């Protein structure tokens, strides 16, 4: 039942803050903050109480928490929610990013505050649904449903950045890219369901039933592609990434934080939960291609980040680069790489979210996002530059911070199966250093554009930033609790690869070695 609460709270909270606008502008903000804090607390409580050695694909074949009632019985569709370590970590991240998103729009959003929070919370609710849905119909339902609130966030509260094509254009592009690719996934889901029906004679959309559906390799290949394209668009993988920089540069801060922090992670989650387990052979066959696409993303994102002048587009392209690592790690399939993927997702969610919040704060003070207009900010603001320095350093993979752990594990894990790809991927670390230091140099150092001092971070901004600093340090210095949560699900995914490719099974994973 707690899963249903986890799902319902954001929706109810969103509705309350919408209707609560009549009590003043502060009311919706407090409701939204309380809602997301409640989600965060509930998920942390689940963390403390659950037995996370369980996962459905694991040896015991059980979820940590489960909720299952019939929904559309005639088609075998159930309202089936379940949770294991991977889901929980991402839900905790969602709660955290949700709190941040509400906090960072405290002053930025002044128009229609209630409706804004409705959209924000419904989007977050949809994402939580994605992380818990174990019925493919339900998964698709949430996958598409959360697009609408995001569309509104960008289209109504976004910026019309100079030189861009406007926020409505960006929002529409985002929507069409994800919806069209989502429909391909729907075709695949239905294809899988009918293949399953041909084998067993009954309809079912349930994850457990559809696993191990017998099918020919050609069918498996096509069905896998439908899922792969939908996830690749959302990730985003390079040839189909062009919606992301547009969406980021026009979105309000909360929208960018939400987008970079969790929406991109739904794609990686989808691959780990559905793409690979449902279609093991085809996934293995596409793995080299997928990894090279990841490498392409790493390098392309980094090179383009270097040449950006809009600071939000800059962060957007670094996201493409960092998500390239995730792609490589998922398809490398060793346990280290998969553990690295989990840490990388969390760390990138937090560091990119923090960078977007900083972008928003700089915009509030300077009224520009153009890096060329900045310069010398170090002498004009006291706390913001060092904090920005911290997150930029995290983004370039400084040891001791979460991103380093993630990228390092991914590279180590990949090296064992695909050394060439690992070598090419590691160039991403060098390029990251180049573009990050370039940003620091241009925006914060050098001669100040004006001697005038700017307002420093206030208590709210400082608190959010420092808590993020603490979390990133925690991820970097003591990631063991995270590994404990993600070990069972990741070992299960790794086992799929291990079965298909016995050569990689003999590698003794460092991560589990440490844990024992």
């Amino acid at each position, binding site marked *: 039942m707690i899963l249903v609460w986890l799902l319902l709270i954001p929706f109810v909270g969103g509705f309350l803050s919408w209707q609560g606008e009549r009590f003043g502008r502060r009311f919706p903000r407090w409701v939204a903050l309380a809602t997301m804090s409640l989600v965060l607390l509930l998920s942390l409580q689940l963390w403390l109480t659950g037995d996370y050695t369980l996962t459905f694909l694991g040896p015991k074949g059980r979820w940590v928490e489960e909720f299952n009632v019939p929904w559309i019985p005639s*088609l075998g569709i159930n309202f089936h929610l379940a949770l294991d370590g991977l889901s929980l970590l991402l839900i905790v991240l969602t709660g955290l990013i949700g709190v941040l998103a509400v906090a960072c729009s405290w002053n930025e959003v002044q128009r229609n505050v209630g409706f804004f929070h409705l959209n924000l919370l419904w989007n977050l609710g949809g994402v939580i649904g994605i992380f818990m849905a174990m019925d493919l119909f339900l998964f698709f339902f949430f996958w598409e449903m959360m697009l609408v609130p995001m569309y509104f966030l960008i289209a109504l509260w976004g910026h019309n950045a100079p030189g861009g094509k406007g926020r409505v254009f960006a929002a529409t592009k985002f929507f069409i890219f994800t919806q069209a690719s989502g429909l391909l996934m729907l075709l695949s889901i239905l294809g899988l369901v009918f293949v399953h029906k041909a084998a067993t004679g009954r309809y079912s959309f349930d994850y457990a039933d559809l696993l191990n559906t017998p099918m020919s390799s050609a069918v498996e290949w096509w069905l896998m592609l439908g899922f792969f394209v939908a996830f690749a668009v959302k990730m985003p993988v390079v040839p189909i990434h062009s919606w992301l920089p547009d969406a980021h540069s026009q979105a309000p801060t909360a929208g960018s934080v939400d987008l970079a922090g969790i929406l991109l992670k739904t794609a990686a989650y989808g691959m780990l939960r559905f793409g690979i387990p449902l279609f093991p052979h085809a996934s293995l066959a596409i793995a080299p291609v997928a990894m090279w696409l990841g490498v392409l993303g790493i390098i392309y994102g980094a090179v383009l980040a270097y040449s950006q002048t809009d600071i939000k587009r800059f962060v957007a392209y670094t996201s493409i680069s960092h998500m390239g690592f995730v792609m490589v790690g998922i398809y490398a399939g060793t346990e280290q790489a998969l553990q690295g993927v989990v840490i990388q997702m969390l760390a990138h969610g937090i560091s990119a979210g923090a960078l977007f919040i900083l972008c928003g704060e700089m915009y509030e003070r300077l009224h520009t996002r153009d890096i060329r207009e900045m310069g010398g900010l170090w002498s004009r603001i006291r706390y913001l530059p060092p904090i920005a320095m911290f997150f930029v350093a995290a983004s370039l993979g400084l040891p001791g911070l979460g991103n380093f752990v993630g990228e390092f594990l991914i590279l180590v894990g990949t090296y064992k199966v695909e050394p060439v790809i690992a070598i090419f991927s590691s160039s991403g670390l060098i390029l990251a250093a180049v573009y990050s230091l370039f940003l620091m140099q241009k925006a914060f150092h050098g001669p100040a554009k004006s001697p005038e001092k700017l307002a420093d971070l206030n208590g709210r901004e400082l608190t959010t930033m420092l808590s993020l600093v603490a979390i990133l340090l925690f991820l970097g210095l003591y990631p063991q609790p995270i590994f404990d949560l993600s070990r069972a699900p990741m070992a299960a995914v790794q086992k799929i690869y291990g079965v298909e490719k016995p050569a990689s099974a003999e590698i003794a994973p460092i991560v589990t070695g440490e844990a024992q």
Partner: protein
Amino acid sequence: MTQSQLLALLPILFTSLTVILVISSIAIKRHHQFNATFSVIGLNLALLSCGVSYWVGPQLVTPLLIVDGYAYFYMALVLTTALATATLLHAYMEGYKGHKEEVYLLLSLSALGGLIVVCSRHFASFFIGLELLSVPLYGLIGYLVKERRSLEGSMKYLVLSAVASAFILFGMALIYSQLGTLGFAEIGGRIAGQTGNARTVLLLGGAMLLIGIGFKLSLVPFHMWTPDVYEGAPAPVAAYLATASKVSVFAVLLRYFVEAKAYSYPELLDVLTIIAILSIVVGNILALQQDNIKRLLAYSSIAHFGYLLVAFIAGGPLATESVGVYLLTYVVTTLAAFGVVTLMSSPYGNHDADTLWDYRGLFWRRPYLTAILTTSLLSLAGIPLTAGFIGKFYAVAAGVEERRWLLLAFLVGGSAIGLYYYLRAMVQLYLRAPWVRRYSAPLDWAQGTGGAMVIALMVLMLVLGIFPAPFITLIKAAGLN
């Protein structure tokens, strides 16, 4: 005629009675409120009597009509649509200066035609019903006689509808010439052994029938009239045109295909496939640049019937159910969209508020209407939480089941294009227009029932989208055979 046959015919009898009552009441005294109430009560009784199906099994009433679960479901759908249209007409006509009362008469007559079409299992009853459905529409479309666009639309519909009827008649004649029967099931029985010339003539007849029906359903390339007529017709009438008249024709088309075994003619299915693809592509592409919301909805309805044809052509075990679900969700959504257009338009007398410009910043004036229109646009786009998603899901499922990949590819592509114009229209509602001050317009009492109805439609859209199981059970029970 037995008692149970009479009982089965109750919806049709009640509707006929309504027509007579409304004529007499208008003759006795013109009173907008009374006359409207009479027709609404009559149609409601007809709708309630559809519940008789629970006690009376399928009835064959003369060789012409069959009243089974399938017919009851579509009769209920047509009657509900007619009721919704009557409610909207009431709100719309309040501000009209001329005679208002005859709209209800024409509407009830047209609904009667729809009921007969839905029940028909014979070309004769099909044709009678079709004409009874279409002829009152000429009057309804051109009801605002002083409005040029309205008259133009009426003339266009008159001419093209008559041509379509001629095609249908000729097709029937060709089929009759070879088989010597007009009943659907009898045709199905005799058609199997036909070869050579007879087969060619039969195919030709089938093709002419399809052309005529293509006109009525406004499928590409027989769609030219649709945007002009929708634009010219009063908004509630456009709602009726887009829903009841299409739904009843589509329902009988499916019955014909199943009973007359037309699925065994792959040529017909190939032609339908081309029509479906053209409808999806042309409907969606022409909608892209529309600035008039009624024209936009017209093109979108063309595209939607293309999607619906995907399920229809697939024709597998899921097809009847899919068509039922799709039509139900489409009707609810379209009624809500046109309902909002109606409520926006009625206070302005003879001119409908139909350009997107009229809707710019609507959210700041009428938040509830905006919520309804937003929901229906999202539903038309097939986004989860709304009815349209379930409909589209079923259409895709039926297509996947029969492996119609080409059609599905166009469905996916068409939906992606479709998103563009639905979103474009939707975001207009929220963009703050410079001249619009923020205030909540008072809900006019004349619009009270209309407003309640569109709100009910929105709730229905959401319920269908979130908890469709009861409706699906109902539709499953109303399957053919």
